[in-house]
């Protein structure tokens, strides 16, 4: 009954509106997807150009070039530049040819121009004799990215074989890469949520790394100094200590921002280094386990996050806690009054002020929560994976999370997806390094490019000729002063 009444009152849903949902999803996804794709293409270029075999073959072939070859090489360059020029401004050509250049037409023309240019350039290079160089480059990229995939998701044939045999050990080995990816994703979810929450309040929390360190320190301290507690008490206590430590590290820059207007970027950077030195001192002094190595003692067994499968699978409860935190952050940001205030302060501080919101309080709250989330990332690593704390244990989770929050568009669900992606990249990168001899650092380069493309959608739009969406871009932070 009610439904039919609603149908009477509400205007009928048009075909355009029904499409608009899919359109909206596509609009939300296309930019991150294209940014990732482009970043990987650039990464592939770097891999190919730094491959010894490729470089040798390139030098060898170039040495044997004859004048005709040089001529063709120049022709190739002309074709490449011309093709790019044409694909940048298809309207001019189309108008010359007598078409009224509509968006659709020029887009098709653009695609054809790009494909033709690529085919022509590759064809010319093969004719000149660079064919095997291209083949080598291609195989270098494929083997690198193949190893990356296999290291992160596992070998499909191995997985199928293990499933058919049902052997526990084979299963564990087959699913080990996936589980490692999930383990690596877990701190990313926490830290990514931390940075995203900051962004929502107009704060750029570069300090996630330091907050993560402090969180790890406090939670490992609670983990090893308390003994005899049941797990149900000890785990929340240790996790909470981590969150508290991180929150404290986020509070200081938040307080300074709110009270004296000191920019949080500088202060969080400074707090990062203070945290590094502090942990260095603690692990070399008060918190050092007897022995030569600067490592903390192991945490009590009751403080360890439970693992679900026997060794070597390290998949642990932290993953689900992280997902729970993502859901909580979503609820907090979009369904609670506090979250609404935080988002208002982030979107338009003046409006928030005139609506009577306490800006100082919201900034401090956002920084504390952000720090707490980052601290939980550290606690999670200590309680779920390492069981103790060594110097420089994090190796960049906090910094990567900036890229991640941008890729996830500062939305908790987006952050989870981006974190899963970054976790797989991280765990697969190790295999890529061992098998394909590609230093894992290429992933950092890819991440930097992802940030650049996500922050400057104009570049991606210019490359792929995408029309700007109606609503404006998200503003992340403001300038230095106040």
């Amino acid at each position, binding site marked *: 009954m009610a439904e039919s009444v609603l149908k009477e009152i509400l205007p009928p849903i048009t075909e355009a509106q029904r499409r608009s949902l899919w359109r909206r999803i596509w609009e939300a996804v296309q930019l991150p997807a294209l940014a990732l794709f482009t970043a990987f293409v650039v990464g592939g270029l770097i891999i190919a150009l730094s491959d010894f075999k490729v470089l040798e073959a390139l030098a060898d072939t170039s040495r044997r070039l004859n004048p005709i070859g040089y001529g063709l090489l120049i022709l190739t360059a002309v074709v490449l530049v011309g093709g790019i020029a044409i694909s940048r401004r298809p309207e001019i050509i189309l108008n010359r040819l007598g078409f009224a250049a509509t968006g659709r037409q020029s887009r098709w023309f653009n695609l054809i121009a790009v494909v033709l240019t690529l085919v022509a350039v590759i064809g010319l290079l093969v004719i000149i004799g660079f064919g095997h160089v291209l083949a080598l480059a291609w195989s270098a990229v494929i083997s690198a990215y193949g190893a990356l995939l296999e290291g992160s998701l596992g070998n499909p044939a191995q997985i199928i074989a293990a499933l058919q045999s049902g052997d526990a050990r084979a299963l564990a080995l087959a699913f080990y890469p996936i589980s490692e990816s999930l383990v690596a994703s877990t701190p990313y979810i926490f830290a990514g949520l931390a940075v995203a929450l900051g962004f929502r309040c107009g704060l750029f929390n570069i300090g996630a790394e330091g907050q993560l360190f402090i969180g790890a320190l406090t939670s490992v301290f609670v983990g090893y100094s308390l003994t005899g507690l049941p797990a149900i008490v000890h785990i929340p206590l240790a996790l909470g200590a981590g969150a508290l430590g991180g929150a404290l590290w986020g509070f200081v820059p938040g307080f300074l921002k709110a009270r004296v207007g000191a920019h949080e970027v500088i202060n969080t950077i400074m707090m990062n280094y*203070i945290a590094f030195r502090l942990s260095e001192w603690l692990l070399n002094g008060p918190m050092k386990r007897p022995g030569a190595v600067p490592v903390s003692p192991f945490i009590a067994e009751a403080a360890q996050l439970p693992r679900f499968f026997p060794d070597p699978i390290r998949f642990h409860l932290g993953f689900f806690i992280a997902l729970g935190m993502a859901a909580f952050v979503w609820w907090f940001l979009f369904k609670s009054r506090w979250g609404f205030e935080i988002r208002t302060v982030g979107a338009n501080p003046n409006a928030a002020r005139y609506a009577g919101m306490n800006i100082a309080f919201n900034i401090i709250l956002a920084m504390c929560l952000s720090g707490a989330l980052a601290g939980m990332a550290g606690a999670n690593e200590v309680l779920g994976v390492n069981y103790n704390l060594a110097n420089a244990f994090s190796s960049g989770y906090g910094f990567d999370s900036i890229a991640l929050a941008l890729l996830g568009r500062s939305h908790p669900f987006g952050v989870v997806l981006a974190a899963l992606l970054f976790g797989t990249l991280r765990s697969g990168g190790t295999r890529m390094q061992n098998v394909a001899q590609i230093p894992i650092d290429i992933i950092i380069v890819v991440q930097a490019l992802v940030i650049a493309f996500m922050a400057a959608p104009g570049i991606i739009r210019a490359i792929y000729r995408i029309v700007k969406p109606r609503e404006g871009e998200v503003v992340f932070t403001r300038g230095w002063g106040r």
Partner: protein
Amino acid sequence: MAATTLPTTTPRYTQAQLAAMAERRRHRIIGILMVLLGFAGFALFAVNADPAAVSTFGLNTGRTAAFRLGDLVVPTQATVIVLSSLCLFIGGYQFIRGFGKSTNAIFGLIILFFIASFLVWATGDKSINLAAMINSTLLRAVPLTLGALSGVMSERAGVVNIAIEGMMLSGALVATIAGSVTGSLWVGVAAAVLTGVLLSLFHGVLSIRYKVDQIISGTVINIFSVGITSFISAKFLSEFPQLNNPGTFRSEPIPVLSAIPLIGPILFDNNFFTYAMFVLLIVIHIALFYTRWGLRTRAVGEHPKAADTLGINVFRTRYTAVLLSGALAGFAGAYFTLGSVGRFDEGMTAGRGFIALAAMIFGNWTPFGAFGAALIFGFADSLQSRLAILNVPIPSQFLLMAPYIATMIALAGLIGRTTPPAADGKPYEKQ
């Protein structure tokens, strides 16, 4: 954030009165700090000093060609007491009467006294080479100053540059490779400068053309630099060590000046980078504050709209400043490989770009202020490496934290307000 409260009633004081009150409060706080430093000097150093001990300071660097000086020997406890009392008296005067405009200079002096009394106490019954220590302070301040100059350059034009760290790291790597391949250190320096310029061009295009948040665009460069330098280092430098052996600039004593006792070996017996730093300091100071170009650059950083109205090309001015900033940062990067150790190691800048940024803030966005801050930070660094010899019960990590904590205090406006260029960090939208 002073403007958080709504202006509901008519204000009781005028803006000028409020500013004067804030200034008086600031002077009081500084006075209290000075007195506290004096008390700290008594409590920490004078009480713990052995009355019979003497502190010995060497005044000659090892390789000096200058006229050699005898060691400076002072009674430990007496000196500490004198220095701490000075802190107390000057601080008391500051609290009651105030030094007015020279407050900051006096405060610097007091900090110097405090550091001196710490040193005298720490060297009780031991000896330390003061000249060598000052020299190493200066050396450690060189990359910080160059990096800070890079920051001053771009931020004065209104573009935040937190990518100093990344530009230095890339510059260091490229300098070592170019220097090793060509066998010429000068080519290495030029290549490093060029690298900085390229990265800053990227920064400029992102932040000026695409109006990306300048902090994010700087972060991109930092992360990218870490990735690409580690990648190249792991892929090529470990495979071909001959690519990572450019040699270093030797120290070139300036003929007459280096023979002056004490300051000769400290100031005039250094390598190319130190001299270049002094020249750049003076050149940039004059260029920014005494030329038409500098006035325009600063105008663009303070009020781009007004500058635009007066016919200054905001975008071009900003690009110029950002590219110069990149060149400076790249040059600073070359110091790490060509000016000091002569090889590249992964992550070798180790956060010095951020300390340079801190020095720039501490120095209130001026070249000489940044140099002063860089000297303080360089001193903390150089002291930290000598703590083990002095056997002082302070963990070296705390001294390494000092620059960061000092910057946060400075930024909090506790000791005088730092005033960034008004339009710093704001993309300019031409109407």
